[in-house]
């Protein structure tokens, strides 16, 4: 798995644990379950949704690469050996 796939996998695992919690990007909100589904079909999303989700993923990916603690926890949740 590459870094992006690990981040997506970790978010999806988190969404499985807390499907009804919500994430808000300004006025737009998704349940974690809905957000995880969006991650599955990223390539097929309408542009505005794709932009929103991609921006969050870019930020998470940057954190994943720069923050050792975040990386270690995300890999553990995604079931990838550190």
């Amino acid at each position, binding site marked *: 798995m590459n870094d992006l796939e690990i981040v997506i996998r970790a978010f999806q695992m*988190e969404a499985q644990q807390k499907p009804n919690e919500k994430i808000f990007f300004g006025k737009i909100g998704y349940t974690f379950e809905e*957000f995880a589904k969006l991650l599955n079909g990223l390539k097929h999303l309408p542009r505005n949704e794709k932009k929103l989700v991609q*921006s969050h993923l870019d*930020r998470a990916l940057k954190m994943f690469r720069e923050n050792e603690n975040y990386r270690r*926890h995300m890999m553990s949740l995604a079931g990838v050996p550190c």
Partner: protein
Amino acid sequence: MLNYIIDRPLMDEATQYTFQWCKEIVDFLNNQGESILDLPNNNAVRENVEKGLKENPSALYIHYGHGDQDRLVGDDALPVVDLNNVDLLSGREVYTMACLSARVLGVTAYNKKCVAFWGYVEVVSFTTDALEEFKEALNYGFYLRFKGKGFKERVDETKAKMQEITNKLIADGKFMAASCMDSNMNALVCYDGGAPPPEACPVSRVIARLFGYRVLTTLRKIRDRLSLL
């Protein structure tokens, strides 16, 4: 004369949370005996905000709700402050918890001699599994004001607090919340004595300089609409 003008729209699900976060500030100010104009319950509309700002020219203005590059949005989804009445922010401190508004409105307010504009240059994001943590982070800079801190210190300490909270969220397994907190931390700015950074894009910089931010914002909106087609 009032010391604080506070508008906190309650118009959708997201603002149900920001409304409550701002209530903590309102309660704090009331306990401090400060004179405030609080505008909840459908009163956060342009007419009321303009009246409050005009009648209290040095009051600190607080907005907790939606925003865009060039506006802060009220209960009726219309701007309470935008580039047409940004002059009302001159000579006062502004503390906003709203998406994007520091990008153009904040810069324009600074250029119109606003004392300081506290806000965000990107979309503000949060998750419901960490509401207390987001409230603490987003209100933190305001409370530092009462500890005699300067604007730069307040920004630096607020970012440090956000980093501390991000680390706690990671340890708690709240990864979506952690990345939202990190994003908010990076988007936080305060324009006070130091000039806002110039536009990163050279084309935007030229347009802003030659035609002003109103034209730049309009062109950006047209570009965004075209990109959605």
